[in-house]
């Protein structure tokens, strides 16, 4: 049976399928509640940490440079990713 898309990645905006009752969701792949890929979840945690001040801008930029960034971003995420990657910006 084809799996319907029932979720939208909160980083890249891609639609994907998630099943919250599956066993794998409750153990190793719980990030799939918010993102479609582990890579997007890494970006999620970086933007999240940058936003609440637990990850400094320099460190956040290094993490993002080590990520395979998706082609698309949700607009409000795009703004912050650009802000982190801009070395001349303040904060």
């Amino acid at each position, binding site marked *: 049976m084809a799996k319907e898309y029932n979720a939208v990645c*909160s*980083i890249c905006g891609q639609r994907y399928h998630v099943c919250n009752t599956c066993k794998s969701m409750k153990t190793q792949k*719980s*990030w799939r*509640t*918010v993102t479609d890929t582990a890579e997007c979840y890494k*970006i*999620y*945690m*970086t*933007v*999240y940490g940058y*936003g*609440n001040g637990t990850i400094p801008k320099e460190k956040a930029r290094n993490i993002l440079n080590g990520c395979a960034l998706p082609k698309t971003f*949700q*607009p*409000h*995420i795009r*703004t*912050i990713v650009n802000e982190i990657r801009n070395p001349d910006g303040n904060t």
Partner: protein
Amino acid sequence: MTKFNPNEVVFEKIRYIEEFDPTTRQLLSRLTNVKEPTLNFTSEGTPVTDAQGAEIVTFYNAAQGTLSYTNAIHSFDLLAEQFSSEKVVATEDKKIVAPVSEVLEIMDNKVVLKYVPVGTAGAEIKYVQLVNDSNEFGETLEVSAAAAEGKFTIDAAAKTLTFQEGTTGRVIVDYEAEMAEAISLAKTTDSMPPIRTLHVHCYFRNKCDNNIKYIGVITFPRAQIDISSVDVSLTPDGGHAVTYKLQKPYCDESGKLCSVFVYKD
């Protein structure tokens, strides 16, 4: 000394019903609010007839019994047996994750939860639901790594959700949290209720002299909770009904379904 040999006695009440592990004799539970106990036995009768079909004698065998009662107070130990599962008791080291639902007023774009939510780091709560003053559903907000229209961010350790500037009203927050003081039970679709040894302790009174009290103990060596139909009454005065199927001890030649003991108090 005259022999103690009562026949007719007045049944006063059940003191309690004790449950033991049949092999270890460990006391597992004691129910003290037992009402409406009934004991029922059935046997299969095989009539022996003469040539004309007239009954000469009937042999009875395969005796079976059931014990039913209602515990006036809801019992989680009893329910665990009816669920054929263990009652899990939380400790500081082994907390239980339980569902929580709160309706909170948004103050300064934030709400503070009662418990620390657990789940995917940074996204412990996926959705919240805005409600208006008439309790009607409004917008569903989704967790995000950064604030935006229709989104909220979460700081689980601080039990705080932060909303987009200008978000007001009340919000329904459903989440899961770890509890150190909690119990949990679960009923699965296929499970086998355990066999227990039951002791039903009762009081009797002498029919002529009410001051003379007797203690009665009815023992059931092998009783299994009947889970073919379990009705759990979710009302304050409903009580907790239970039925046990009585079985004879498997390796015991004498095959006692139950025994009755009466002695002076």
